[in-house]
C-alpha cells in the first residue's frame, strides 16, 4: 500500500508537469494576444505604454522562461494573477471550487442512491416487466440533455411546487438548509443522466453475476433473495460501476458548465469558460492544473476501490 501511494504521487507530479506544460503551449498558440485583455484596444495606440505593460507581465520573455517562472511560483501555491481581474488565481479557485464540488458530489450521491437498488432489482427481474420499465426510463434519462432536464425540473419544482429557488446560490455559511435548497435542482439535473448510466452498467454486470455458480450455491443454502442479491451478488458486480463513477466524477468537475449557467451558479466550470473566452491564460492554466490533479486523485481512489471490492486484486498488487 505505501509503495503504491508513493508511485501514485510520482505519477501525479509527472502528469501535472506534462499537462501544465501542454496547456501553456496551447494557450500560447491560440490566436489573440494577451495584451488585448490587459489594455483596451484604443489605449494600445500608445506603443510605449504597451511595451511597458508587456515587460511588466513578462510577455516578452521566451515561452520556456515564462513557463519556468510560472512553475516556480506554482510550487509555492501561487498560480499567478488573472490578467482580466488582477485577482490571484488561487483565491479565485478556492472561492469557486467548493461550489462545483458540492453540486458534483451531491449529484453522484443521489445517482448512486437511486441506481444501486434500481439496477439490482432490474437485473433480478431481467426481461420481466419491471426490468423493461426501468430500462425504458434509463433510456429516456440517457437521451435527455442536461439543459432540458434542468428546465423541466425548474418548471416543476421551482415554478409549480415552489420548493426550491429556480436559480442562484447560497453558501453553506448562510446555513445548510438554504444551501441545500440551491444545490437540489442543479444536482438533480446532473443526477438523472448519471443515474441512468449507473443503472444500466450495474444491471448488466449484475445479470452476469447472477448466472455464476456461487449465486446458485448461495440460494441452495436457503438464503433470502435479498440477502443473495446484496450480500453475494452486488459486490462482484461493482467493478464497472466504480470505473464509470470515477470517470463521471472526473468529467463533472469541468462539465457542470451547463448547469452552472442554467442555474446561475458561480462554479469553476463557468470561470474556465470565461477565462478561455477572455484569453485569461493564467486562469486557464491554473484551473486546468487543478482539474488534472483532481482527475489523477479520482483515478487513484478508483484503483483503491477496486482493491477494497475484490480481494483477488489486492493480492496481485
Amino acid at each position, binding site marked *: 500500500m505505501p509503495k503504491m501511494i508513493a508511485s501514485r504521487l510520482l505519477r501525479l507530479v509527472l502528469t501535472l508537469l506534462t499537462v501544465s506544460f501542454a496547456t501553456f503551449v496551447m494557450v500560447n498558440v491560440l490566436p489573440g494576444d494577451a495584451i488585448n485583455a490587459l489594455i483596451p484596444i484604443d489605449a494600445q495606440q500608445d506603443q510605449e505604454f504597451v511595451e511597458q505593460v508587456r515587460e511588466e507581465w513578462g510577455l516578452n520573455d521566451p515561452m520556456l522562461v515564462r513557463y519556468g517562472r510560472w512553475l516556480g511560483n506554482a510550487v509555492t501555491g501561487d498560480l499567478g494573477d488573472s490578467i482580466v481581474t488582477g485577482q490571484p488565481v488561487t483565491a479565485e479557485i478556492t472561492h469557486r471550487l467548493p461550489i462545483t464540488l458540492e453540486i458534483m458530489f451531491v449529484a453522484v450521491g443521489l445517482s448512486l442512491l437511486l441506481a444501486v437498488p434500481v439496477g439490482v432489482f432490474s437485473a433480478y427481474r431481467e426481461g420481466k416487466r419491471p426490468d423493461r420499465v426501468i430500462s425504458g426510463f434509463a433510456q429516456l434519462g440517457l437521451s435527455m440533455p442536461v439543459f432540458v432536464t434542468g428546465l423541466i425540473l425548474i418548471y416543476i419544482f421551482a415554478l409549480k411546487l415552489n420548493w426550491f429557488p429556480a436559480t442562484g446560490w447560497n453558501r453553506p455559511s448562510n446555513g445548510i438548509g438554504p444551501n441545500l435548497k440551491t444545490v437540489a435542482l442543479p444536482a438533480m439535473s446532473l443526477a438523472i443522466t448519471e443515474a441512468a448510466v449507473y443503472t444500466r452498467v450495474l444491471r448488466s454486470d449484475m445479470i452476469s453475476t447472477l448466472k*455464476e455458480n456461487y449465486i*446458485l450455491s*448461495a440460494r*441452495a443454502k*436457503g438464503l433470502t433473495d435479498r440477502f443473495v442479491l446484496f450480500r453475494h451478488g452486488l459486490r462482484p458486480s461493482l467493478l464497472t460501476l466504480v470505473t464509470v463513477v470515477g470517470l463521471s466524477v472526473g468529467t463533472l468537475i469541468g462539465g457542470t458548465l451547463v448547469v452552472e449557467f442554467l442555474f446561475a451558479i458561480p462554479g469553476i466550470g463557468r470561470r474556465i469558460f470565461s477565462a478561455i473566452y477572455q484569453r485569461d491564460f493564467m486562469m486557464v492554466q491554473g484551473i486546468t492544473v487543478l482539474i488534472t490533479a483532481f482527475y489523477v486523485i479520482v483515478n487513484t481512489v478508483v484503483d483503491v476501490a477496486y482493491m477494497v471490492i475484490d*480481494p483477488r486484486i489486492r493480492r496481485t498488487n
Partner: protein
Amino acid sequence: MTTEGTVVATLDVPAPESEILRVEDLRTSFFLPIGELEAVRGVSFLLQRGRSLGIVGESGSGKTVLARSIMRLNVGANVKTTGRALFEGRDLLSLDSREMRKLWGSKIAMIFQDPMTSLNPMVKIGRQVTEHLRKHRGVGRQAAKQTALELLNEVRIPEAESRIGRFPHELSGGMRQRVSIASALACEPSLLFADEPTTALDVTVQHQILNLLSREQDQRNMTLVMVTHDLGVVAGRTDDTLVMYAGKVVEKASTIEIFGRTSHPYTEALMRSIPRTTQASHTPLVAITGRPPVATHLPKGCAFSLRCPYAQLKCHEEDPPLTPIGNSGHEAACWFPVGTDANQEAFERNLSDRLPQTLVVADSLIAGKIGQTVGDSPEEGSA
C-alpha cells in the same frame, strides 16, 4: 393431499420413518427455441434414511438436472418439472419458495461440482461456511465463528483459525471443496446431494474428498446422493446405484449387484470403459461407440439402441420398461439383459452381421485377454 389419484398406496399409508426421499415419475423439460427438451423422462426411486445412492451417467444423461429438479434448483422460467419428490413425506415440487427456502441448506444441502466457482470469491470463508446457519437457526456471530472453526477442523483444513478470514482464491481446489463440504454440513442436513463433487479436482485429492464425504455420512447418519459420471466413484462407496441414460433410469440395484451382476448393456459399457491397473500400459480406452442421443431427437424404442452391441429389431421399435432381475430389487430396462441367453444370442447375431459397435466390443474382449496375460507377467510386476 394431491390431485394425483394413481399413487393411492403412498397416500393412504403414511411413509415409514425410515423413508427419506421418494421420487415418483419425475419429468423435467426445458422449453427452448428449438423445441421442448425433456432432460429427465420419468424417474422413480426410493431412498432410505442413512443410505447412500450413486446416480451415474454420461454428460447429458440428465443426472444433474434430476438432482437439481428434486432440490428445485433449476433456474429460468423455461423449466418445468412434473411428478413428485417426497422428502420426509412432503412433496418438494408443490412447496412454495418460502417453504423451500426453509429446507434448503438446513435439511437438504448440495455440494456443487466446481469449488472454484461455487464459492463466492469476494466473501470470506468463515462467513460462507456459516451464513445460512445464522439465518436458519438465528445463531449469533461469535457462536457461528466457533461453529465454522469446528467444521473446518472436521473437514481437515489445516490452520482453520487463520483460514476463516481468508478468501477462496487463497486456498487450493481440494481445500475449497472441503470448505464447500463444511458449509453443506453446517446445519446438519438429513439429505445431502453431491453433484460431481470431485470432477474438478486432482486424482489424489478426489480420493481424499470422497473418503471425507463417506466418513461424514457415516458419522452423521446422513443420507447421501452422489451424482457422478464415474462408476469408480460409486464402487465401494454408495449402497445403491442408479444408472441413467438419456433422462431415464436404465438400471438400478445395490452397488454390489450392479458390479456383480451387470444387466444393462449401457452399464456394462460404462464398466468396460474404466481403465484398469491390471491392463498393460498404453492399452487404448474402450469408448462407447457413437454419441449420446440429442434429447430433442430421441430414437424410437430404446434410447441406447443405436450404440448397443446387442440391439435387435425390437429394441429399435419398443422402449423397454424397468423390469426386475432376480428378486433383490435389482431392475434393468432392457429386452436382452446382459448375462442372459437371449443376450448371448443377440451378440452372436450382431457379430455375424458385422455391426460396428459389436465388433468394437469383440475386439476389446480379445485385447482384454491379452492385456491380462501381459499384466500378469513377472517383468511388469517388478517395474
